[in-house]
């Protein structure tokens, strides 16, 4: 043999270590940044750099949220419901559209320009139209959420379905695999990492869609709280609404990311969550 070189590599995976410690290790930075933001906010109001009636103090805002917990919870649930429903519809319809577009070039040629057109029309501008058509209920807001979340879902899924290794597909045809089996066992799972990156964008956009829908019609949901508070120059309530809305976005985003970790453990681990230590 041409010289036996032995390299000893020891690996330690963090997976097995204290899970709480790992969580703290991963998330202290964003929390520190958040704390810093609150600190600046507090300083601005405490030392009256900006007048109280323009920017309420963090303490007053949190106090208000606590005092009006029932009221805020109700409106948060409304917005949350619209967002989640809009997101789910966007995912189902978006994935189906993507599958059809990849399956048939004709469908793709027909749908693609339509999609692009629907995307470039500003949803905020057409939202009032939905209120005219669909009334003041939840429907127009869900529709706006769907419309706004739909595009990233379709684009990411089409990209995912198209980026399957062609040799993998050739292999499937030497196995006599039917198109359905090839789709279920190869194409679809291979596209999931792409889909999930689209879903993360889509879920945050869905919140925006629901709130925009609430701006233009109806009298419940976080969007209408904010609009009302704005009309009454009630800045504490305005800030409370904004804070809760951001929180809603973050929670939904985290839920999608959690689902990704659960469904695609192979993908997460390949991205290097298992830490390799070499001596």
């Amino acid at each position: 043999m041409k010289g036996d070189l032995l390299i000893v590599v020891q690996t330690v995976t963090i997976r097995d270590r204290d899970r709480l410690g790992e969580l703290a290790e991963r998330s202290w930075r964003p929390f520190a940044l958040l704390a810093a933001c609150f600190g600046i906010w507090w300083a601005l109001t405490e030392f009256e750099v900006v007048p109280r009636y323009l920017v309420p103090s963090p303490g007053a805002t949190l106090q208000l949220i606590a005092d009006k917990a029932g009221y805020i919870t109700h409106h948060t649930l409304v917005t949350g419901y619209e967002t989640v429903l809009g997101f789910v519809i966007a995912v189902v319809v978006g994935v189906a559209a993507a599958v059809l577009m990849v399956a048939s070039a004709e469908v793709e040629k027909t749908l693609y320009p339509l999609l692009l057109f629907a995307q470039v029309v500003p949803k905020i501008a057409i939202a009032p139209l939905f209120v005219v058509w669909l009334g003041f209920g939840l429907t127009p807001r869900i529709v706006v959420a769907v419309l706004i979340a739909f595009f990233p879902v379709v684009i990411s899924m089409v990209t995912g379905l198209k980026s399957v290794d062609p040799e993998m597909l050739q292999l499937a045809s030497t196995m006599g695999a039917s198109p359905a089996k090839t789709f279920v066992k190869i194409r679809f799972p291979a596209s999931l990492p792409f889909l999930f990156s689209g879903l993360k964008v889509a879920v945050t956009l869905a919140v925006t869609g629901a709130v925009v829908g609430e701006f233009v019609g109806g009298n419940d949901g976080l969007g209408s709280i904010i609009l009302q508070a704005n009309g009454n120059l009630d800045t504490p309530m305005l800030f409370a609404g904004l804070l809760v809305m951001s929180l809603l976005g973050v929670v939904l985003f985290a839920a999608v990311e959690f689902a990704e970790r659960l469904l695609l453990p192979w993908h997460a681990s390949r991205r290097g969550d298992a830490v390799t230590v070499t001596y």
Partner: protein
Amino acid sequence: MTVTQQAPAVEIQKVAARFRSKKRDVLALENVSMDVRPGEFVSIVGPSGCGKSTLLKLVSGLLKPSAGAVRLLGGPVGGPRKDVGYVFQRAALLEWRTARRNILLQAEMRGMPQKEAAARAAELIEMTGLQGFEDALPHELSGGMQQRVALCRALLHRPPVLLMDEPFGALDALTREQMNVELHRIWHETSTTVLLVTHSIAEAVYLGNRVVVMTPRPGTIAEVIDVELPRRRNYAATMSQPAFASATSHIRDLLGAATHRE
């Protein structure tokens, strides 16, 4: 050469393969003709880019020849064929499936009985020395292990024709020898017809009944060498045979001449 009455397992008749795109027009293969008898082991060697992988894809119907015809097991090849076992040049594993489930993909796609497939997979895992890594994902395997998984997957359904495109390219010398011995044993014990593309002259001669030496692109057959060694071969003993030495040096000369001409 011995005269057999059986119809050839693979017939390649005046085949050409051309890849045409907007940017370039590549003639990969030109006027390639060859017959492979059932149960025969044919090794294919040639310079990089001469169309060896293309030839295997033509035989399995993954590519259509731009001229000529290919017949497999007595019938014309008119589209992807499922009566082959294929090992691609790259392992081509599904990264979300464990080693075992990558091997079992073959069974799932073919609708083979589960129990039988599982037993066969276990047997192949054992044979290729993958025990202990059945539940590892591809990114947790070395390049050589990934190729062994691909080999197991190709053998799972006991195909009558085995097409192998540099299956041992990523293996270390010692494992490669072991795999050669294993492959020789499998071939000897079954009646599988094998087409093996390799860059190792020793491997080509040790395993092959015949070695096809190809010219640089456009690939044509420079010479077909009959390996004058017994059908059943012992690795170490074969290496020291005069027939082995003369075959390898002849092939080396052919390949050297071919590359210098370029």
